[in-house]
């Protein structure tokens, strides 16, 4: 009988869904803030750049996790 470690697959599925939702939510949120408020609102622009920063940070964190040299 083959033993299957389903927890590994659950981890992958969870990470994939979480990462995709986070990236698309914050990236499109940033685009929306930039486009609806335009250049008139400084707050909207700051918010937009904060959203993009979250995306970049998430990507860098992901890379940090998989590169063994960083651990």
């Amino acid at each position, binding site marked *: 009988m*083959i*033993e*299957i*470690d389903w927890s*590994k*697959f659950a*981890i*992958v*599925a969870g*990470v*994939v*869904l979480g*990462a*995709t*939702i986070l*990236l*698309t*939510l914050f*990236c*499109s*949120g*940033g*685009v*929306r803030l*930039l*486009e*609806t408020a335009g250049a008139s609102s400084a707050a909207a622009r700051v918010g937009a750049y904060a959203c993009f920063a979250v*995306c970049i940070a998430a*990507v860098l964190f*992901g*890379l940090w*996790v*998989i*590169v*063994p040299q960083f651990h």
Partner: protein
Amino acid sequence: MDATLLITVVLVVVFALVFDFTNGFHDTANAMATSVATGALKPRTAVVIAGVLNLVGAFLSTEVAKTISSGIIRTDSSGHEMITPALIFAGLVGAIIWNLVTWYFGLPSSSSHALFGGLIGAAILGGGVGAISWSGVVTSIVIPAVLAPIVAGIAALIGTVIVYRMTKQASVPHAKPAFRVAQTVSASLVALAHGTSDAQKTMGVITLTLIAANAQPANTGPQFWVILTCGLAIGLGTAIGGFRIMKTVGTRITPVESPQGFAAESASAATILASSHLGFPLSTTQVVSGSIVGVGLGKRLSEVHWNVAGRIGLGWVFTLPAAAVVGAVAAWVAISSTAGLVIVAIAAVVGVAVIFRLAGRKPVTARNVNEGAPDAAPQTQGALA
């Protein structure tokens, strides 16, 4: 190491690197197809970026290489591999032939599954069914092969819905360029992921051969020169070729726009990177195809070209067994005598040459890669929702 063994090991290394090169040639599309289809990147630029990131990715994580060198083929009671370098070579030949045939027909089948199929077929012929670690095959190959495209597809579907909901009220002409930038980043991540996944498979095969030839202890990872040459081979293959399949993946499955492309690539990159980290050798082609079907569903069901998706699905089902049969036949010839081994090597060279010549007659190049693609011109302004 006697002369025959040494020659066999050298043959494996050379053909493994050729396989790696054809893998890059074959799979460039996976990383960059959606970017090229939406006009976010020019075909040539996309291909060069993908090549460089393939090489970088090869160095990032070697978990997948370890799975292949120690997780698929069993060792006997005294700790020796139950596969010989000659059998590995035969398996490789099976994979190369299958890979090039599907490449010629523009079918994004899985080069990884061709490789596993070839190896498994050759190992069964040489050492019997017991030479295969079936639990390794099921947990590392079969289950990930089924789950990964589905997970990537669901993630891409949700991502697409989020992107379109969020940007519905945004003024359309400006939202698109923003997503083109985002998409260039996400496409680059896919190329990087490709290096952590596909370059590893060749490294795994070379490492397995070195272990089988007693040139390296069992259960050790790939050596530096192996990582470097494999990364270079796949990067070079990616940079030189790949326009042919780009056409199928980017434009025939479903029309792709920048926001969709971004969602698809985020899902693909996350799936491949997370799986590579845990040592699951995924097929990047399958994951990317799953994501593209997912974004098609997220936008509108009717836009998925199900017949193309179905054709790709058939390729998935047949790749492993078909390559296993070719691998087993090659193994049967290769282990019969030294002359047999030479015959297999010649057959592989001839097969490769013939397919390259055939492909040259109707090339897909940087100029015609976007033919039939909707929304390819940067000026096009369509409705987002």
